[in-house]
């Protein structure tokens, strides 16, 4: 049985697939997509997936996400697969990499951290202590970060 395509193929741009179900809006936030002024975006949420049960998919037309932008997604969608589309075919596949430190991706969520002063100019840094399970600590104050709190502190 063939399933009807929910979203049509895009000509040029980026497809982010296998986003954990329900997280696509957060992904857009993390990619700093300005919803009011962006290129056309197609979004499907909670669709069945053989690989992960249910998933979200995001298609951004006429914009190729850079590796730096993609690595921001490691916080909430570390297993997402990314394809760069050119002329309706997959030109490149990219992996999301967590790395050892996240720089200027999110602000430490601890209320008494020195970085809570918005005027302090040094970059926000979170150290990756463990990737699985994800354990991130502020490089300055050392506090462990809850991923839900971090989603609220995306820069």
């Amino acid at each position, binding site marked *: 049985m063939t399933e009807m395509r929910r979203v049509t193929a895009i000509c040029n741009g980026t497809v982010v697939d296998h986003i954990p179900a329900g997280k696509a809006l957060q992904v857009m936030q993390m990619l700093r997509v300005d919803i009011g002024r962006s290129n056309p975006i197609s979004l499907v949420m909670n669709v069945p997936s053989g690989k992960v049960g249910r998933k979200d998919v995001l298609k951004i037309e006429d914009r190729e996400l850079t590796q730096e932008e993609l690595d921001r997604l490691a916080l909430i969608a570390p297993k997402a697969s990314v394809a760069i589309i050119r002329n309706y075919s997959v030109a490149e596949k990219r992996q999301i990499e967590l790395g050892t430190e996240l720089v200027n991706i999110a602000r430490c969520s601890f209320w*008494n*951290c*020195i*970085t809570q002063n918005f*005027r302090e100019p*040094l970059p926000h840094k979170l150290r990756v202590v463990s990737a699985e399970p994800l354990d991130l600590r502020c490089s*300055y*104050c*050392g506090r462990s970060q809850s991923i839900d709190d971090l989603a609220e502190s995306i820069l």
Partner: protein
Amino acid sequence: MSDLITMDNLSNDEILEILDAAERLLPVAMGDVYAPLLQGKVLGNLFFENSTRTRMSFESAMKRLGGEVVNLSSVGSSVAKGETLYDTMQMVDGYSDIAVIRHPRQGAAQYSANAIDIPVLNAGDGAGNHPTQTMLDLFTIRQAHSTLEGLNVVLVGDLRYGRTTHSLSHALVRFGAKLTLVSPDSLRMPAEIVSDLQSHGAEVVESEDLAGSISEADVIYMTRIQKERFPDEDEYAKVAGIYKMTADDLVGAKGGMIVMHPLPRVDEVDPSVDSTKHARYFQQAFNGVPTRMALLCRSLGVEVPKEVGE
């Protein structure tokens, strides 16, 4: 650059080397020998929060070694006008060779170290770390027991908010200490710290009973229940004065057992303890000087000679 922000910056061997250097510097700290190892060097002493012992002992340590000290406190400086820590540190970078910082915000010491080139020593950042206190505590313990290995240490009082006990307990388990944590239920050591200590293979016992912990102890480390940390007075009143050690309580203690306290004390260690052979808290406060001397030398890359003063 040789910063000291948390005890994680030091290996066990480095800790012991620093304690050895501090021991060699004792006669200098006492004023018996003059050893101008840090002549021509300037320490920037930055206290954005109150301090008595830490600030004075750093100043004494620097001056006894022939160095100079410039001070900054948040009152009366540009900090009160809203200057960022980053900007303040740029000034300090120019005015001194090494900086000591105490700040109410956690992470301020690491932030400062990232902001400037000269070495930074953390003298307390919020409820975070206070590694120079831990070093002088270790110095005091080793002075009394000639070793840091395998001691039975009882930590008493506010184990929830006290940065001193957090840092010290981490350091002690690296040397195989057995820890007994004595506190009222509301001030227990945070669960993540306890499990961290246990994951290092440490034997950790939690208790509310001080009297029952005294006879087996090599070290009893008392702390003040910090009124300023409580959200309301009623909660404080429930636990205020819960532990009051008197000389009579120490009758069954081991002969070599020492009583320590980071000070200031309120009523948790009765003055009757002062005259017992166990009291070590004033010595502990003095030990801040040789220990901080050794730390200043290390961060400034100055070797402490085997025979100081010769």
